[in-house]
C-alpha cells in the first residue's frame, strides 16, 4: 500500500511508533542475526544479480548451523521421522525394523495417531519419560522424574520461559540475572525484553575462559546495591568460548548458589560437543546430587538441552527440553500454566528428541550405521576445533584459546589504534567495523565480539568451526591474510 504524503510528510501519524511501542522490545539486540548478517544476505542477493565482488560466495560462519555448512543428518533419525509423517511407509521394507518400531510407538502416543495433533503443553508424556530415562543413564543412575521434564521449542523457548517466571520486583527490588561475559546473546536479549537487570560476570580469557568464583562474588556484591540478584546463568560447554568447566568449578558454583540463595540455570546444549582430551562434560544435576542431600534437596536448578547441536545439528526442528529440580510445587504449577500459553512444541521436534534420547541399541539393526555416522560427525568437529586453534594462533595479532567444546572460536584480535578511532568516529564498535570490512573484502560473515560482550578495550570475533575442513582451512587463511592487511592499512 503506497504511503500517502503531502509535501513529503506522512498524511497521518502512525498508530504504532518507536515512541509508544514496548520500550523493552525496542532495546532488544541479537548479534547472531543482527546487522552484519543482514548485510551478508544483501551481498548474497548482489552476487545472484551478477554484481562483481572479490569472492564468489558468502560464507556464513556466524551461526551454529551444522547442516547449512554441509553436515549430513543422521540417517536413522530421518527415517523414523519420515515414517511418523507418512505411516504408509511402514509397509516399505526398505526401512529397518527398529525405525518402524520407534515410529509406531511415537504415533501411538499422538492424538489420532498423527503428528499433526496438538500434544500436551508440557510435551508428549512417553517422550518425557524417555528423556527422564536418558538423563538417569547419563548421570549414573540419579533418578529423574518425567514430571520435571518440560519439552520445548528449542532450548531458547525453555530458557525464556524460566526467565519470564523468575523476573519480578520493581526498582531496587528488580530481579537481577547473572550472565557470563562473553555470552550467547539470547540471554541479554531476553533480559532486555523482560526488563530484568543484567549482571555481568567475566570469564577469564587468560585462563582459557574459566569461571572464577571470586569474580562471581564481585559481580554479586556490586549488583546487590541496585537490584535483587536471584538467578545465575551458566553455559557449559560455553558459547562463544568453547570452554568446558572442570568438575571442581561446577562444585564451586553449586556451593556459591547455595550460599547466596540463587536459582541456577544451566545451559548444556553442547554437552556432546567436547573435544579436548583433558576436558569432560559433567552435568550440573549429576554433580549436585553427588554433593549430597544438603545440596541436592535445596538447590533450585533448571538445565537445558536441545537437538540443535551435538552430533544431530537439527536446528530447524526447534526441539529441546528442560529439567527442573527442587521447584516449589506452587511455582511449578505457575510454570505449567505459563507453558500452556504457547500451546505445544512442534511435534516432529518432540519425535526427534525422543530418538536422540532413545537411539539404536547394540542389538538393533540400525546400530552400526548410527554409531558410525555419530562418531564421524564428532570426530570431524574435533579435528576442525584443533585446526582452527592452530591456524589462528599463527596469525600475529590473533590469539585463540583452545576450542575445548561447543562449535565456535572466540579469538582475541589486536586492532591498531587508528582503526579503533576510525570505528568510533563512525559510531561503530571497533570489532563490528573489522567484521564488516572482512565481509565486504572476503565474503566471510562472522559476528563481532561486541555482540557477545567482552572486557573493555578488548576485541574479538566469533566464528563457527562448522564449514567443511577444506573450506575451513581456506577461510581461516583468508582471515589471517585480511588481518595482516587490516593491521597494515590502519598502522
Amino acid at each position: 500500500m503506497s504511503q500517502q504524503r503531502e509535501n513529503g510528510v506522512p498524511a497521518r501519524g502512525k498508530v504504532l511508533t518507536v515512541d509508544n511501542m514496548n520500550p523493552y522490545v525496542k532495546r532488544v539486540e541479537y548479534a547472531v542475526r543482527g546487522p552484519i548478517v543482514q548485510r551478508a544476505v544483501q551481498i548474497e542477493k548482489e552476487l545472484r544479480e551478477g554484481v562483481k565482488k572479490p569472492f564468489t560466495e558468502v560464507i556464513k560462519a556466524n551461526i551454529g548451523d551444522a547442516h547449512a555448512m554441509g553436515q549430513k543428518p543422521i540417517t536413522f533419525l530421518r527415517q523414523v521421522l519420515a515414517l511418523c509423517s507418512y505411516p504408509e511407509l511402514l509397509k516399505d521394507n526398505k526401512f529397518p525394523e527398529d525405525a518402524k518400531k520407534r515410529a509406531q510407538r511415537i504415533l501411538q502416543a499422538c492424538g489420532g495417531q498423527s503428528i499433526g495433533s496438538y500434544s500436551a503443553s508440557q510435551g508428549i508424556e512417553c517422550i518425557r519419560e524417555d528423556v527422564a530415562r536418558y538423563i538417569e543413564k547419563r548421570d549414573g543412575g540419579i533418578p529423574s522424574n518425567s514430571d520435571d521434564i518440560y519439552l520445548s521449542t528449542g532450548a531458547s523457548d525453555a530458557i525464556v520461559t524460566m526467565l519470564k517466571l523468575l523476573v519480578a520486583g520493581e526498582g531496587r527490588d528488580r530481579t537481577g540475572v547473572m550472565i557470563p561475559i562473553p555470552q550467547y546473546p539470547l540471554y541479554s536479549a531476553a533480559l532486555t525484553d523482560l526488563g530484568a537487570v543484567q549482571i555481568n560476570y567475566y570469564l577469564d580469557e587468560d585462563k582459557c575462559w574459566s569461571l572464577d568464583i571470586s569474580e562471581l562474588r564481585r559481580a554479586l556484591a556490586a549488583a546487590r546495591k541496585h537490584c535483587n540478584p536471584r538467578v545465575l546463568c551458566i553455559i557449559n560447554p560455553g558459547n562463544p568460548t568453547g570452554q568446558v568447566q572442570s568438575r571442581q568449578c561446577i562444585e564451586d558454583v553449586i556451593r556459591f548458589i547455595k550460599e547466596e540463595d540463587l536459582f541456577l540455570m544451566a545451559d548444556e546444549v553442547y554437552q556432546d560437543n567436547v573435544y579436548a582430551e583433558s576436558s569432560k562434560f559433567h552435568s550440573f544435576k549429576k554433580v549436585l546430587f553427588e554433593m549430597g542431600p544438603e545440596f541436592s534437596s535445596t538447590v533450585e536448578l533448571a538445565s537445558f538441552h536441545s537437538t540443535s547441536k551435538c552430533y544431530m545439528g537439527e536446528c530447524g526442528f526447534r526441539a529441546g527440553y528442560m529439567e527442573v529440580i527442587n521447584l516449589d510445587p506452587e511455582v511449578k504449577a505457575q510454570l505449567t500454566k505459563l507453558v500452556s500459553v504457547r500451546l505445544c512444541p512442534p511435534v516432529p521436534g518432540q519425535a526427534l528428541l525422543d530418538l536422540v534420547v532413545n537411539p539404536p541399541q547394540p542389538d538393533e539393526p540400525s546400530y552400526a550405521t548410527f554409531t558410525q555416522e555419530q562418531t564421524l560427525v564428532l570426530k570431524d568437529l574435533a579435528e576442525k576445533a584443533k585446526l582452527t586453534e592452530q591456524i589462528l594462533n599463527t596469525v600475529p595479532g590473533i590469539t585463540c584459546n583452545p576450542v575445548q567444546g561447543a562449535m565456535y572460536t572466540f579469538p582475541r584480535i589486536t586492532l591498531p589504534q587508528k582503526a579503533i578511532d576510525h570505528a568510533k568516529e563512525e559510531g561503530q564498535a571497533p570489532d563490528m567495523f573489522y567484521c564488516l570490512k572482512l565481509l565486504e573484502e572476503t565474503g566471510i560473515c562472522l559476528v563481532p565480539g561486541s555482540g557477545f560482550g567482552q572486557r573493555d578495550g578488548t576485541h574479538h570475533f566469533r566464528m563457527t568451526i562448522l564449514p567443511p575442513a577444506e573450506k575451513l582451512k581456506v577461510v581461516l587463511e583468508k582471515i589471517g591474510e585480511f588481518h595482516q592487511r587490516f593491521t597494515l592499512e590502519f598502522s
Partner: protein
Amino acid sequence: MSILREISPKVRNIRHSELLALGRQACGIKEKLKQGVRKPYKEVIDVSGGDPHRTGVKPLSFVRQVLAACLYPQLVNSDKLPVDVRQRAQRLLGACKGGSVGSYTLTQGIMDIQQSVSKFISQRDGGVPSVPENIFLTAGSQGAIMKILSLLVNSEGTPRTGVLTPVPGYSSANMALEGLGGAIVPYYLNEELCWELQIDELRRALQSAKGVCNPVALYVINPGNPTGHIQSRKSMEEVIQFVSQEKLFLLADETVQDNVFGEGSEFVSYKRVLAEMGPPLSDTVELASFHSVSKGLMGECGLRGGYVELVNLDPEVMNHTYTLFSTDSSAAVTGQLAVDLMVDPIQPGDPSYPLYYKETQYIRTMQVHNAKRVTEVLNSLPGFSCQPVKGGAFAFPRVHLPPRAIQKAKEEGMPPDHFYCSRLLEDTGLLVSPGCEHGQREGTHHIRFCIMTSVDILEEVLRCLARFHTQFMKDFF
C-alpha cells in the same frame, strides 16, 4: 527456595484455565481406565480443543508425502512416491540451507515460502498486492499473536496497555496478553444475532476503558472462535472505520478462513476490505493478519506452522519486529513446509490431484454435515440452544442450567458450566470445554466442542451429550 510471591506477577495474573483443570480430570480417568477400573465407557473422547486429527480427520496424503520426502530425501529418488510429490520436495529442499530441513532459516522464514504466501494472499484477495517482506512465518497463529502483542504492550507503563478482545473469544490469546502485563478490554458478541459483532458494543467497550487502561489495539477473530460467525463486509468496514478513528492497531485472527461452509457465507479478508476501501484508510490503518495450518483442510496443529502479514507498519517498528523475531531464530521448518503446502496446493492436472480432491471434498462435505447435525440435535434437546454454525471449527451452544445445578456448582466451588463439563466427563468420558473458558455474558452458560471430527466420532459425541444432558436436567430439575 523461590516461592510463589517471588514469581513474576504477570505470570501469576495469567488467568487460571478451567480447561486445564478438566484436562487433569481426564488424565485421571484415562489412568483409571488403563488400570482396568470399570466405567460406563472405554475411553475418553476429547473434543475440547480444535484438534481435527485427534478427532478422526485424516491428514492429506500429498502433504504428508511431501513432508516425508523432505525429512528423508532418499525418498525423492524412490518411485514409491508420486512424481509431483518428489518434485515439490526437491524444490522445497533446494530452498533449505545445505538442502536440509534441519537447518535454521532466515528469521522471517524460507524466502521461497514467504513468496508463496505473498502470492496466495494476493490471489485470495482479488489481486490486492502483498509484499513478501511484510510476511513472517511463525509457530502457528499463536506464536505470531504472542510476538505482535509483545510489540504493542508496554508492560511497565501506567496505565496498563489494553487490547479490546471478543467475548466469547480465544482464551490462549487472552492469556498471552495477561502474561505480558496487558489489560483485556472485553467486547461482547451478540448471541441472539448469531454472534454478530456490533460497533456500538465496540464503542461501549472503548468507553469503559477510559481511566482504566490505555487501549492500543482491537483483536477480532474472523471467522469467530468459538462462535464460527462470519463477518459481513459491511461490519468489517465499520470496524476499519472504528480503528482508524480511535487510532487502534487492528489484529485480525483469520486462522479458520478455510472453514466456511454455511450457505451464502463467504470469507473476505480484512486486508482485502481495507484495500478496497481505498485511501486514506488503505494507506494508514495498521493491520496484522494471522493464519495457520492448524485448521482448514489440513488440520496440522502439531506442526506449528503459521504466518502473520503486517500492513502499513512504521518502517522503524518493522526493524524492531525483525529483531524481536530473530531472538527465536526461526520457525520450525516442518511448520514452514506445511504453510507452503497450504498456500500453494496441488492443482488439477497434477498426478496427485484426484486423490487430493477426493480427500478435501470429503472433509468439506463432512463439515457441512457435522454443522447441520449438531444444530439439529442440540436444538432438539430442551435446555440447549445452538446458533447455526456457518463456519469455524467449533459449536458453542448455550446450556440453560437449572438453578439447582448452578447452586450445586457454587457449593463445589466451580463455575456452573465447568461443573456441567466435569459431570459430563465423569459420566460419559466426553471432554468438552466450558463456556467460562472462552467468556460469555454474565448469567449465561455454554460449552464448546470441536466439530472438525469424523462423522462417527460426532455421532458418538452427540449421543453421549444427549443422553447425559437429558439425565442431568432431570436430576437438577
